[in-house]
């Protein structure tokens, strides 16, 4: 029976090549896309599951709720937390503290930017990272030893074996020699912990003060806890409660002002509220968007099968009648027709696999992954599920309709077009609504991105190069700037050189202080070089810039932006000071016109600029992402011979900072990076809408050719009665035009609503132009007309006698 059904199904598909082709192509595209999305989602949900102990591993998240401040959570914890827990709770098997530190490594004369990861020596007992080479059972116990990942070992030291080699690491401005005591396989792509060089935790004394190790108010490293088998986090709570009382947290943080959350390690990746760059977290939103788009294209492709199968049902009604005469039960016929849709879906799988292989590099590029296609049981299972889902959902209704044909009526030639035609119209409307929705999305996203990139930001970012020096020393940075500037300004292509602490196209720092009337106030702050205004073409609206003539301003003068003036409610900002008497004497010497120092997702927020923060420092009690080290150099070029100027700048850099890598970045590309998520989403939506329109157009092609075949006689009769070719074409186009019009009109409000929601994420956004919606409707209509004219023209222009003779 099964073999027979397959044989028939194959013959039917072969005989109906056009329809089989349309369906096969559409389903292949849909399955290929689903496959790529499945790879992405599977990886997203497999983060950190490679650890043998993943089910007992937790990252502690410290929540604080101080008086007058918003509650906040952070995975930065006190140094003392981990050791205390290990000591006081029997539930804890091991604790690992971990923190990253960017610095430079040197091997011989060659310098490298590297990331150090300080970890406790239980690291390899807790996490399942694989050692390739090791000097001893636990290579982290040697305080002058480091463990390298394989790729970093290759980058720094060439080919292995590496154990016993030495590297120089810069720690707090001084170089120290370390011996390689171990090398591991690179951390897997699905690890939230990504390290290059593991350093024994105690080495942190070289960059941290000794008394921090016992203070509860200082937070820095992350704390990972491996529970004993069978232990629960409730037992951790008990130990923490005891510490809470013993250390008088209530006095420090207020009653209930501090608590810990235990994040299972496998949850970290999709916990985007802890989106700290070093955890590389992601949002489940991306998985949902991609799944949604894959589902949408699956629907559009499945709809093609359903509507074409229904459209052809009359052709097959005779077969149904005969089979019933031969004793077929309805259920047997339904099974036969379902097997056809299942077979087609199954045939689409190998085609989809090839398409997915071809599209994988593009997809990886868009998604920022390194996914690979391999037929493991999970992917196999997903493909099987897709085949069943597509085969059944697209084939069930046609199967039911077909199996319902009454043999008596069919054999007497009385079969009607069947119950399918209204259903087909509904499906066409569904398809074109989705296509219109995606097209609207594509156009509006493109417009918004264009708007963002072309907007006047209040400064000139073109032809400005950012040179980042990794030093954390203010003196080193200041010295570097002076020596570099002196040389660079002599070059004809260089207009100006300056430096800032937080540069454009990055995240700017904030400082917080308590005002005299007891309020906590937080504003953006940046330490700048006096030449910044000229370099970036910032506009002053009141007061004066910094100048070498008034060196006193460098210490006690601050320049605020207009948003700060509004925020403070100053009528006359000049001469004002921040409302915190703990700060030393300072005054506002100038007001800078608002400029967008953040991405255009945000309004311009209050900002304070200064050269040195010494006057403000005594009052500042909270710092976010602010260092005060002006280690970001900004160079304005005149735009002539950029390549030559860059080569010259590189030469100068190697002379003034031989130990630092030369890493130029144009500000424009940094600013583009602000909108990477939007660009990715917009790219995915663009491809999705292209595919949807393509698949829907193929479906329409099939339906129109069926309609032409069905109405050949009618067209002949109408021509005999005097209809012109345009009248015939209009007749053919009318039904589909109405459907597409209805479909796109349905998409308008949905598209409008969705676009509004998306645009709300931007402080600066385009106005929705109704013309966009009209254009989408018109282009889909024109596309359908072209299809209809193409297919009907032959029949419409043919001698009607021909059509009627063969009736």
């Amino acid at each position: 029976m099964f073999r027979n059904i397959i044989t028939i199904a194959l013959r039917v598909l072969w005989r109906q090549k056009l329809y089989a082709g349309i369906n096969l192509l559409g389903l292949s595209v849909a399955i290929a896309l689903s496959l790529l999305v499945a790879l992405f989602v599977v990886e997203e949900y497999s983060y950190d599951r490679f650890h043998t102990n993943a089910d007992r591993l937790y990252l502690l998240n410290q929540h604080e709720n101080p008086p007058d401040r918003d509650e906040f959570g952070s995975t930065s914890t006190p140094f003392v937390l981990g050791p205390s827990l290990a000591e006081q709770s029997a539930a804890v098997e091991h604790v690992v503290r971990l923190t990253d530190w960017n610095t430079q490594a040197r091997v011989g004369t060659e310098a490298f930017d590297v990331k150090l990861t300080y970890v406790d020596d239980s690291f390899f007992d807790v996490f399942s990272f694989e050692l390739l080479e090791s000097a001893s059972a636990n290579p982290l116990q040697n305080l002058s030893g480091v463990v390298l990942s394989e790729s970093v070992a290759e980058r720094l030291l060439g080919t292995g074996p590496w154990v016993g080699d030495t590297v120089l690491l810069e720690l707090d401005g001084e170089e120290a020699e370390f011996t390689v005591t171990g090398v591991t396989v690179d951390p897997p792509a699905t690890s939230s912990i990504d390290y290059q060089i593991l350093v024994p935790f105690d080495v942190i004394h070289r960059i941290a003060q000794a008394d921090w190790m016992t203070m509860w108010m200082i937070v820095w490293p992350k704390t990972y806890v491996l529970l004993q088998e069978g232990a629960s986090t409730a037992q951790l709570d008990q130990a923490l409660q005891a510490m809470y009382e013993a250390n008088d947290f209530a006095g420090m943080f207020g009653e209930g002002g501090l608590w810990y959350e235990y994040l299972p390690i496998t949850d970290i990746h999709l916990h985007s509220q802890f989106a700290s760059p070093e955890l590389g977290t992601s949002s489940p939103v991306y998985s949902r968007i991609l799944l949604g788009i894959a589902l949408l294209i699956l629907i559009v492709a499945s709809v093609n099968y359903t509507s074409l199968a229904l459209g052809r049902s009359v052709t097959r009604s005779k077969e149904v009648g005969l089979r019933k005469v031969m004793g077929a039960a309805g259920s047997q016929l339904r099974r036969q027709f379902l097997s056809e849709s299942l077979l087609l879906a199954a045939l689409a799988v190998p085609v989809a696999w090839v398409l997915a292989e071809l599209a994988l590099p593009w997809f990886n590029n868009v998604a920022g992954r390194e996914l690979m296609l391999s037929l493991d049981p999970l992917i196999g299972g997903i493909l099987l599920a897709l085949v069943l889902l597509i085969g059944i959902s697209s084939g069930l209704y046609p199967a039911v309709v077909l199996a319902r044909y009454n043999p008596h009526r069919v054999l007497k030639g009385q079969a009607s077009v069947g119950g399918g035609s209204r259903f087909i119209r509904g499906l066409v409307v569904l398809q074109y609504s989705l296509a219109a929705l995606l097209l609207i999305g594509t156009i509006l996203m493109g417009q918004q991105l264009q708007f963002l990139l072309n907007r006047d930001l209040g400064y000139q970012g073109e032809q400005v190069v950012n040179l980042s020096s990794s030093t954390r020393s203010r003196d080193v940075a200041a010295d570097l700037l002076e020596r570099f500037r002196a040389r660079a300004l002599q070059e004809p292509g260089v207009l100006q050189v300056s430096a800032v602490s937080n540069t454009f196209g990055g995240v700017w720092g904030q400082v917080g202080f308590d005002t005299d009337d007891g309020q906590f106030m937080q504003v953006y702050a940046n330490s700048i070089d006096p030449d910044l205004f000229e370099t970036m073409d910032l506009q002053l609206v009141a007061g004066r810039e910094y100048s070498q003539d008034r060196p006193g301003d460098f210490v006690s003068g601050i320049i605020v932006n207009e948003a700060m003036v509004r925020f403070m409610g100053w009528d006359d900002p000049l001469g004002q000071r921040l409302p915190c008497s703990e700060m030393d004497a300072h005054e506002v010497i100038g007001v800078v016109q608002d400029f967008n120092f953040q991405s255009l997702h945000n309004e311009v927020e209050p900002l304070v600029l200064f050269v040195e923060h010494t006057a403000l420092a005594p009052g500042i009690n909270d710092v976010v992402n602010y260092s005060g080290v002006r280690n970001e150099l900004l160079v304005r070029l005149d735009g002539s011979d950029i390549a030559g100027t860059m080569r010259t700048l590189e030469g100068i850099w190697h002379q003034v900072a031989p130990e630092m890598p030369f890493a130029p970045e144009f500000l424009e590309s940094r600013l583009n990076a602000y909108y990477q998520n939007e660009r990715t989403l917009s790219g995915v939506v663009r491809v999705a809408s292209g595919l949807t329109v393509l698949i829907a157009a193929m479906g329409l092609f099939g339906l129109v050719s069926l309609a032409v075949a069905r109405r050949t006689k009618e067209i002949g009769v109408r021509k005999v009665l005097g209809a012109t070719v345009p009248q015939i074409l209009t007749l053919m186009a009318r039904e589909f035009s109405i459907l597409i019009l209805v479909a796109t009109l349905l998409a308008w409000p949905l598209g409008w609503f969705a676009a509004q929601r998306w645009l709300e994420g931007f402080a600066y956004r385009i106005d929705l132009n109704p013309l966009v919606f009209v254009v989408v409707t018109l282009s889909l209509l024109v596309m359908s007309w072209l299809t209809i004219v193409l297919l009907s023209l032959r029949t419409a222009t043919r001698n009607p006698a021909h059509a009627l003779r063969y009736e």
Partner: protein
Amino acid sequence: MSETMTMDSKAGAVGLKHDQPLIEVIDLFKYYANNFVKTYVLQDVTLGIADGEFLSIMGPSGAGKSTLLHILGMLDEANQGQYLFLNEPVHRFNEKRRTALHREHVGFIFQAYHLIDDLTVYENLETPLLYKKVKSSERKGLVNDTLDRFNIVAKKDLFPHQLSGGQQQLVAVARALITRPKVIFADEPTGNLNSKQGTEIMEMLAQLNREEGTTIVQVTHDEVKARYGHRIIHLLDGRIERVEVVGDKLG
């Protein structure tokens, strides 16, 4: 009505091979309701068919011949009236039971052959057995026996469009017989054939009826071919106009 009943009883008593009636329909009505107007296709049809009988149905176009045949063959349902097949009340059966009964006991032959275009001769013969869930080995045997018997072994891998009309009808007869049905319904089986081919098919049906006792019900326009039957039912406007007993077939 009492008259038809009487005739029917007579028919049952004419000394055919079996007195047991295979089929009995009583007061059968079939109509199509359109715009509140009922168009009657069959009216008040009462008829008995004995097991082993060869019955011909005649009548002008639109008299309801095919409809009656399809109802008797369980492809369609009457709107009113009783239908007993081997004393089972088919008119009370749901579609599933009707299909089962049909599959077990009924074969069909059509004027236009109605082979399945996508299937080879072999597969066309095999299909009814598949629906009967006959086991693979037995199925093979049955199909090969039938190919032999109808002398079409050489054609088994051809598709219907590769055969002449007569050959197609031969395959259609073979397909109707392969499940060894109790009754074969033939709807103008020779209508599309030339006279020589037509005679061959009729002889084959007659032989089947004579030698294997298969009941045959045929619809025909052709007076000569109608006389292959033991009785001829004459339909007019959906009613049984008269029943003719073909004398030379008696006794």
